[in-house]
């Protein structure tokens, strides 16, 4: 079955900088923004952009991700001549086989999958970014510019540029140089980790890279520099919309807070819906003495306490006398009577028992940070979880 463009979504990373939140699940399946999980964004972008064939490369703790994605029905990707395919590492006949050793190696190991569709172009995505993007527009520019590779870029501040992969364009606009975390950035075009490759050129580059014993099999470190060295045309596709990497606790918290306004990203815009797979539960109930302001609340919720500036996923319970502010409560989290949760991320099905305190307001001290409780934890009555703490599943607090 010939497809002009298929997408490959890198979802195998551990997301180690999310610590307790990715102790038992892969980063793309971390809950986000009320109804979503992170992977909903690239999957919905694919569906909305008319890309109906998506290979999802999984490796680290994929169980929840696999069942979440299913056959892609939630994103209308369950079509008869395409669909979503979970691609774990596998063994071949008589071969040793191996784990994915890098982003490029993950695609290399699935060359046969891509060949099935004989595509003209391959879109490479990562499963840890929050954004709405029309890949069809990027694809149009890729073709117009006759590029071998088009990389989506954002203009960032020079200060931010020192922490990102930076593309330096030449006078004709094509990329001349790629620098990972440059000390003295020459441009402010940061790679968003979204690539469109000419399939034949990608294939050749991947095979060549695989045979290089010194390569770390990474798109940013190896594939892009080697294509540049060979004089391939690489085009930077400028994207001005909202885009956030949610790979750390503070960036995950920040991006959740961004969902409280529609100025950065409008989730209520029906022309570009972000779909998700949610349990069906009754509408949220807001009780007699509850106060819910500047917050997102999702179905299945039961709110009897105070909720301010917070993002609540499905089935969250906030009991009477409890206070939740500037926090992210993942599905099934429970805050019991009199408990106070401030500047915190509470994992799935974690219970904050009566009178417990999690997190504090910023006090300007160096040690301050978002307090994080992983999934399935019980924070005991009147216990205290200080600002910046990281509580793992299985810990007793």
């Amino acid at each position, binding site marked *: 079955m010939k497809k002009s463009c298929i997408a490959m979504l890198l979802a195998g990373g551990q997301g180690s900088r999310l610590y307790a939140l990715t102790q038992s699940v892969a980063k793309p399946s971390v809950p986000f923004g009320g109804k979503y999980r992170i992977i909903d964004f690239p999957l919905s972008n694919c569906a909305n952009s008319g890309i109906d064939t998506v290979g999802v490369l999984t490796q680290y703790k994929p169980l929840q991700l696999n069942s979440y994605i299913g056959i892609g029905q939630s994103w209308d990707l369950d079509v008869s001549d395409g669909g979503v395919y979970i691609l774990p590492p596998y063994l071949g006949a008589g071969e040793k086989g191996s784990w994915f050793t890098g982003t490029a190696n993950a695609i290399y190991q699935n060359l046969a999958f891509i060949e099935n569709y004989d595509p003209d172009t391959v879109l490479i995505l990562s499963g840890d970014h929050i954004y709405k993007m029309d890949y069809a527009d990027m694809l149009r520019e890729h073709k117009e510019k006759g590029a071998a590779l088009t990389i989506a870029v954002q203009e960032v501040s020079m200060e931010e540029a020192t922490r990102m992969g930076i593309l330096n364009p030449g006078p004709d606009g094509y990329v001349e140089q790629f620098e990972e975390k440059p000390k003295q950035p020459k441009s402010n075009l940061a790679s968003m980790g979204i690539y469109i490759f000419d399939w034949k050129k990608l294939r050749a580059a991947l095979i060549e890279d695989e045979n290089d014993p010194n390569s770390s099999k990474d798109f940013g470190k190896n594939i892009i520099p080697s294509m540049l060295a060979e004089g391939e045309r690489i085009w930077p596709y400028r994207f001005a919309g909202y885009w956030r990497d949610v790979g750390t606790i503070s960036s995950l918290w920040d991006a959740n807070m961004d969902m409280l306004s529609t100025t950065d990203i409008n989730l209520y815009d029906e022309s570009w819906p972000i779909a998700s797979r949610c349990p*069906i539960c009754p509408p949220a109930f807001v009780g007699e003495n509850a106060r*819910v302001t500047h917050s997102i609340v999702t179905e299945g919720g039961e709110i009897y306490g105070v909720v301010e500036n917070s993002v609540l996923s499905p089935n969250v319970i906030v009991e009477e006398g409890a206070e939740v502010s500037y926090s992210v409560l993942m599905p099934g989290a429970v805050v019991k009577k009199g408990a106070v949760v401030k500047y915190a991320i509470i994992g799935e099905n974690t219970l904050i028992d009566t009178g417990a305190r999690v997190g504090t307001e910023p006090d300007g001290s160096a040690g301050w940070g978002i307090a994080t409780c992983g999934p399935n934890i019980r924070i005991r009555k009147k216990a205290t979880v200080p600002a910046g703490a990281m509580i793992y599943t299985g810990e007793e607090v």
Partner: protein
Amino acid sequence: MRNYHGIIFAYQTTPELRELVSARSAASLPFCGRYRLIDFPLSSMRNAGILDCGVIMQRNYQSLLDHIGSGKAWDMSRRSGGLRMLPPFGLPEYHTGNYIGTIEALNAVSTYIRDIPQKHVVLMLGSMVANIDLDAAIRQHESTDSDITAIVGDAKPMGTHHRFIVGPDGYVRGIDLYRRNDGAGMPGLEGYIIHKEVLLDLMDRCKAMNLYAFHKDALTLFLSGGGKMDVYIHRGYATAIRTVEEYYKANRDMLDPELRRQVFPAERPVRTKIQEHVSTYYGEEAVVRRSLVADNCVIEGEIEDCIVFSGARIAKGARLKDCIVMRGCTVEKGADLRYVIADKVTSFSEGTVLAGNEKLPLVVPKGTAI
């Protein structure tokens, strides 16, 4: 696969539902923020493992078809069996009105019923709010030698109903028809587990005698012929929706956490078509009390004792009390609504003041812009 086949009656519309059923049948009335009434029998069937199901409809069924689709939400979109929507066929040519009774509705789709491969049929009403544990009812039915098990309630129903009187031997002795108040026996919930051949026999006999009603005619014939009928008692909330008042009260009942738990128990989820993909935002000055709010709403104003369906936009300075606001409604600032049932995509412009009464809620028809 269980040896049971579901039949849901979704053809009823009553004049007492007024504008609410001008473009839908009672079974597709929106309920509790995100559901339709037919979700209850469909979910009961699904939760009991009954995936082969016929839905009898007659007129105004566009909205029902839209909602049910292929039956996917109830796992009834199957390669073999699954869900079948049953508009009238095989009606006599002179017939132009509504089905006079359930037996007539069944006879109108009699070829379908004859072809049912399962041995037993479960009949349910499409416009009843009740989370009935059909699995338990079937297990009880199988433990007796009765040909019919009638599902009855343990609470006093609001409107007209039939009462089942059980004799000392444990079988149903008689049916007290069209009661409005309490009395002897137990109120029927118009759900039945019945042997398919027994049902076909009753349908044939009624047809031969020009009889149409299920309770008055068919069940009375069955009992007078010495048939054995058992009752299964559904404990918990149950109410049929036949009038605007019943519709309003049933929705309002869901604001009570205990009643809500009875209707939406975790172990028997009520399934419905998935529509919304975004949570609800509560604004800086939002005031929300004792209310149910579905997803994809933006609430900036004040709502109290309300049921708000998805897609609502309640502006700052708007005030709603004791209202039911269906999907996609807009209420602008300064609007003040009390005891209003706003049907889908109605809009209330700045400063609109409207008030109904608890006994006579004001129904604003679908699509109205005020």
